[in-house]
């Protein structure tokens, strides 16, 4: 089960958030609802400190995921400082393939190569592009770990 999907830009702002837990993906009312909530800030803070910690303990080390008794968070950090995060059940295996797909197949094509979307997201800006939202939903819901 995948519970939510988050993207943070290099200014630490949440630019995309999608919640799958309560509503089935058909409804679009859980897109970008939690971007400014404390939950987003805490999640970013935890991921940020863990990345710092892992690179401090071993040079060039990259954080991949963390797990609690209840859930697991998978992380991909791109060279441009974007962070892609998927929250899933704690027994789900490696989701780095899906994260790579979301970045290289979807984000690059619909956001980076899109002339109408900003090069750099300003504070308060979020991804509203429907082809990205639909594409992300499709990739995530078609994944074997999404139930």
């Amino acid at each position, binding site marked *: 089960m995948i*519970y*939510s999907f988050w993207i943070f830009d290099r200014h630490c702002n949440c630019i995309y958030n999608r919640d799958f*837990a*309560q509503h089935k993906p058909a409804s679009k009312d859980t897109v970008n609802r939690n971007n400014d909530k404390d*939950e987003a800030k*805490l*999640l970013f*803070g*935890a991921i940020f*400190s*863990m990345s710092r*910690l*892992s690179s*401090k*303990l*071993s*040079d060039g*080390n*990259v*954080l*991949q*995921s*963390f*797990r*609690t*008794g*209840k*859930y697991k*968070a998978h992380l991909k950090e791109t060279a441009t400082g974007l962070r892609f995060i998927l*929250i899933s059940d*704690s027994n789900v295996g490696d989701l780095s393939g899906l994260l790579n797909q979301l970045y290289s197949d979807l984000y690059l094509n619909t956001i980076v190569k899109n002339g109408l979307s900003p090069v750099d997201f300003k504070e308060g800006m979020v991804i509203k592009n429907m082809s990205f939202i639909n594409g992300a939903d499709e990739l995530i819901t078609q994944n074997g770990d999404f139930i």
Partner: protein
Amino acid sequence: MKVLSLYLLNKSGGLIYQRDFNPESNGINKLSSNDYLITAGTLHSIHAIVAGLTPPVLYPIQENQTGNQNQTGLFQVETEKFNLFIYQTLTGLKIISIVQKGVSQETATRFMANVHSIYSDYVMKNPFYTLDMPIKCQLFSNKVLLLSEAS
């Protein structure tokens, strides 16, 4: 299994024991003593923060997030070069081990449970040890080293 480092944190997040095993070859950087304290404090607070981030569908409404964090707190951090496991005992002592990739969760948990029993035997039963203070018991260190080599 190969254990790279071991940390023991008291219930308020203070570092009471830190040890790197085979420090010259295990790939873990040697930090300053201040950095070890920061590392311990960071892990202690992240442990509590991520418990509060549990997706709401996963816990019943009446169960508040400040409850028993042995179930909801941080358990494993997976990085490219190593895995970090956190084991919190009922008294709030945190045993943190950094292990090589590929070591299973069961093996790591067993190792930390064994560290806990060594701690009970050689630290808690030591009349000269003050609770929550840094552990300076030679016997404890020896046993931990033996355990890390055996497991």
